């Protein structure tokens, strides 16, 4: 994943300013910075969810640059803004995602992912009945759905209890050996898993000092 001179504003407030970096997988990269420094924004830009006001990002897979139009195909994203359909079960949501993406064996694959994040027993429950911790696990299952070369996780430890966070750490370590994982986090434990870092400064509101 390569970024060049990324600039972004939120309304009239500049959030990212001429940011550049290049990372190669497999490995884990932590994006750190105080609140409001643009961690989520950066992750969303890399995921192709947000269009920047300036600069560009390029994702290279197997040595070739992928068109930014198709970014979604190569990444797995899990962030607080990802919500699921409350009237469908966890399994149905994942199966829908897999079908829409044209993945093989959608239902089976979804079940496997649910198992991986410890939600196998809850697969048949409607999403509106899930606790926030379970919803967070569902997000992780979604991100892993088609084994993407780049995993983008925004605050993955949110809402998880200790057991969950342990499992998450294991998951990140494991995935980090297979693909490039970029995490936006302020959590020390998660940050420690990372081999490399992006430190974002204190632009915008909320300078904690």
């Amino acid at each position: 994943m390569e970024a060049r001179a990324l600039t972004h504003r939120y309304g009239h407030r500049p959030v990212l300013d001429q940011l550049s970096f290049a990372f190669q997988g497999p490995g884990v990269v932590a994006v750190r910075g105080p609140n409001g420094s643009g961690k989520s924004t950066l992750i969303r830009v890399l995921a192709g969810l947000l269009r920047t006001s300036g600069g560009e990002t390029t994702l290279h897979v197997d040595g070739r640059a992928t068109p930014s139009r198709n970014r979604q195909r190569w990444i797995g994203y899990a962030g607080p803004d990802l919500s699921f359909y409350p009237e469908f079960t966890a399994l149905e949501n994942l199966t829908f995602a897999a079908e829409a993406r044209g993945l093989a064996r959608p239902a089976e694959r979804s079940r496997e992912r649910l198992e991986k994040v410890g939600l196998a027993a809850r697969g048949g429950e409607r999403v509106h009945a899930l606790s926030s911790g379970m919803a967070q696990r569902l997000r992780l299952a979604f991100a892993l759905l088609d084994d993407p070369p780049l995993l983008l996780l925004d605050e993955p430890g949110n809402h998880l209890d200790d057991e969950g966070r342990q499992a998450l750490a294991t998951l990140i370590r494991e995935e980090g050996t297979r693909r490039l994982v970029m995490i936006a986090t302020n959590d020390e434990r998660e940050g420690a898993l990372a081999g490399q870092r992006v430190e974002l400064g204190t632009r915008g509101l909320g300078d904690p000092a």
Partner: protein
Amino acid sequence: MPASGSSSGRAVWAILRKECRSEWRTRYGLNAALLFAVTSLASTSFAVGRMSDRPDVLAALLWVVLLFAALASLAHTFVRETEGHTMVLMRLVASPTAIAMGKLIFNLLFLVSIELVTLPLFLAFMGAPPPRWGALLAILALANVALAAAATLVAAVIAQTRGRGALFAGVSFPVLLPVLAAAVSGTRAQWSGAPVGAELRLLAAYAVALLAASLLLYDHLWEDA
């Protein structure tokens, strides 16, 4: 990794099925729309009575009822996504065009469902003369496509605003006006025994133009500025 061409079609199909299943589970939109259509029909019938000898008025009333039902309900597909914050999920699994086409086809089926109930009731209540079914169904079919194309596109725009549903009727009306005019004209013509070719051509052309514009415009709609 999935192949590009076929995955678009699969995405559209998956989205269409999701919309149908969602509608079936909540039954929120269809009930409201049917109620709305039947209520406006009843009010109209109550106010003007039978209009067997006025095909021009009948044509206008039919389309006003259908238009109102459409305006009251076609924005739901996108407004629900926005309010449920599920657009991120959508955008991560399908291209903007696939999302649009899936919802467009759903809106089309939705319109047809409303008309299946409303049209016979209308013909009965208003004492309408028997229609030339070939012509009338052709007009309905093409008008539905144009309506769905326009409404889905406008709905995608207003779902991202503060006004949402309230804005939909006002903002979509100018765009729907050509459909309304051509449909009324054609419906009147089929009752008067006149040919409807020109209206059909106009509806078809408008539908095609809207679909072509859609293909270009949907890519710009969800950059989440």
